[in-house]
């Protein structure tokens, strides 16, 4: 039965910080960076007020933050950190090490554009750049989703079939600093849901000494990497199982993605995080005019739910994939190339078009989204896509 929840008005960062308070991790090692700063700031207040038992480690950089978090995790602690943009970039080498050591670290990431030019606002260039680091990635449209995803992330990461780190992403400023109404679960409910972390092997187990991070060359590197790939495969079922269990305590339903009015849609937009909220408003107004439009908002990008996406999109006739970061490959954004590649296996391939949008925090409004739907209508009429990749809203 769903627990009685408290309706509160909070920013996304505040919601995440409160979630961390409820999780009460053993160790948090973090460095402040805009727009993640409030998470660490609120959490440090909880530490000094004695509201959590966490060992809070102040570090001199994000490279150290990730290293200390990994070390704590291998020592046997439930360890967390949080970051954005340049901070995530500075963590880069340790991100790979964390996933390959199979450390179930959970990290809120507040999406922010990477420099340069230097910019503090939202786009997804930071986490899109870390898709190959072996981390599970969950994306959140709202403060509520950031909160819900973070609780679930602990269970996903620590599941014995998975043991991989998880990033929980929300959009910088738009979600992290915007105040929204959301429901918080009671502290006790969250505590019970996440349970106690009991690793099978850990460095502080003096009875059973272990070595972590030894050399593995031509003889074993391949096998260790294959284990990692299998764990990511296992994560798919675990993500669904944890979501089902979470629904029971929260009443909120999660999957690999949210399909919004997609069932009978002829045209659809695929878009991540906060922009999906704007796009839903456009779907509603176009639907009111009788247009068959829908939306798909991915929640899980790693592991990539290729088969499920194909099932969800094959009945649509035209799809626009929206990427809030460029790859500079000239062949489209990351989301576009991955979804398009997945659809290669489908008998029914919709017309597909890519939009690069919202870079460096530029607003994407209902006007731009409406234009995307009408571009799709025009493509359907012609039976082909004229311009495969469009950089939306660029001044000439």
């Amino acid at each position, binding site marked *: 039965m769903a627990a009685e929840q408290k309706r509160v008005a909070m920013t996304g960062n505040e919601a995440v910080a409160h979630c961390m308070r409820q999780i009460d991790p053993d160790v948090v090692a973090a460095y402040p960076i805009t727009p993640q700063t409030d998470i660490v700031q609120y959490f440090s207040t909880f530490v000094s007020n004695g509201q959590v038992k966490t060992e809070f480690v102040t570090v001199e950089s994000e490279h150290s933050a990730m290293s200390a978090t990994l070390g704590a995790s291998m020592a046997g602690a439930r360890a967390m950190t949080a970051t954005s943009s340049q901070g995530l970039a500075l963590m880069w080498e340790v991100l790979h090490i964390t996933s*390959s*050591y199979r*450390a179930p670290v959970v990290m809120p990431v507040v999406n922010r554009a990477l420099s340069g030019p230097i910019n503090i606002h939202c786009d997804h260039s930071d986490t899109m750049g870390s898709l190959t680091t072996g981390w599970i990635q969950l994306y959140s449209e709202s403060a509520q989703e950031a909160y819900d995803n973070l609780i679930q992330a602990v269970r996903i990461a620590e599941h014995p079939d998975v*043991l991989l780190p998880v990033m929980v992403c929300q959009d910088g400023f738009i979600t992290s600093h915007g105040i929204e109404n959301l429901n918080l679960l009671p502290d006790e409910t969250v505590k019970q849901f996440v349970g106690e972390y009991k690793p099978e*092997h850990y460095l502080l187990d003096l009875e*059973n000494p272990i070595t972590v991070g*030894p050399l*593995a060359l031509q*003889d074993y590197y391949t096998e*260790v990497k294959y284990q990692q790939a299998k764990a990511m495969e296992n994560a798919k079922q675990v993500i669904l199982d944890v979501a089902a269990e979470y629904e029971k305590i929260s009443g909120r339903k999660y999957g690999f993605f949210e399909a919004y009015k997609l069932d009978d849609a002829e045209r659809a937009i695929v878009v991540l995080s906060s922009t999906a909220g704007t796009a839903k408003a456009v779907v509603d107004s176009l639907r009111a005019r009788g247009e068959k439009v829908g939306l798909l908002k991915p929640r899980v990008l790693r592991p990539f739910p290729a088969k499920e996406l194909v099932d969800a999109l094959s009945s649509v006739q035209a799809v626009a994939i929206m990427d809030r970061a460029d790859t500079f490959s000239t062949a489209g954004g990351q989301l576009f190339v991955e979804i398009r590649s997945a659809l290669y296996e489908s008998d029914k391939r919709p017309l597909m078009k890519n939009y690069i949008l919202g870079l460096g925090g530029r607003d994407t409004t209902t006007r731009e989204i409406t234009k995307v739907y009408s571009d799709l209508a025009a493509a359907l009429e012609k039976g082909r896509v004229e311009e495969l990749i469009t950089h939306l809203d660029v001044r000439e």
Partner: protein
Amino acid sequence: MTNLKGYKDIPIGGMITEAGNSEKYKTGDWRSLKPIWNEEGCVHCLMCWVFCPDTAIIVEDGKMKGINYDHCKGCGICARECPRKEKALYMVKEE
């Protein structure tokens, strides 16, 4: 690499769960040159024992007894420092 274990049979993340197992690692297979000891020519001065960086010279009761090929990497310093040279210690190509 026929004796190596499969991905299901090794701990995750390359972790080593057996303490002190470096003892089982035979560094001798790195060797390309192999020292040969000739007992008759040896005067048991133990210069080879002093210089060997891998403690691969076996000594018993103050006498040279042979070479531990599991750990000798074939650096050749024993043969170089041996005052009897070819008469007692010399290097050959590893077969």
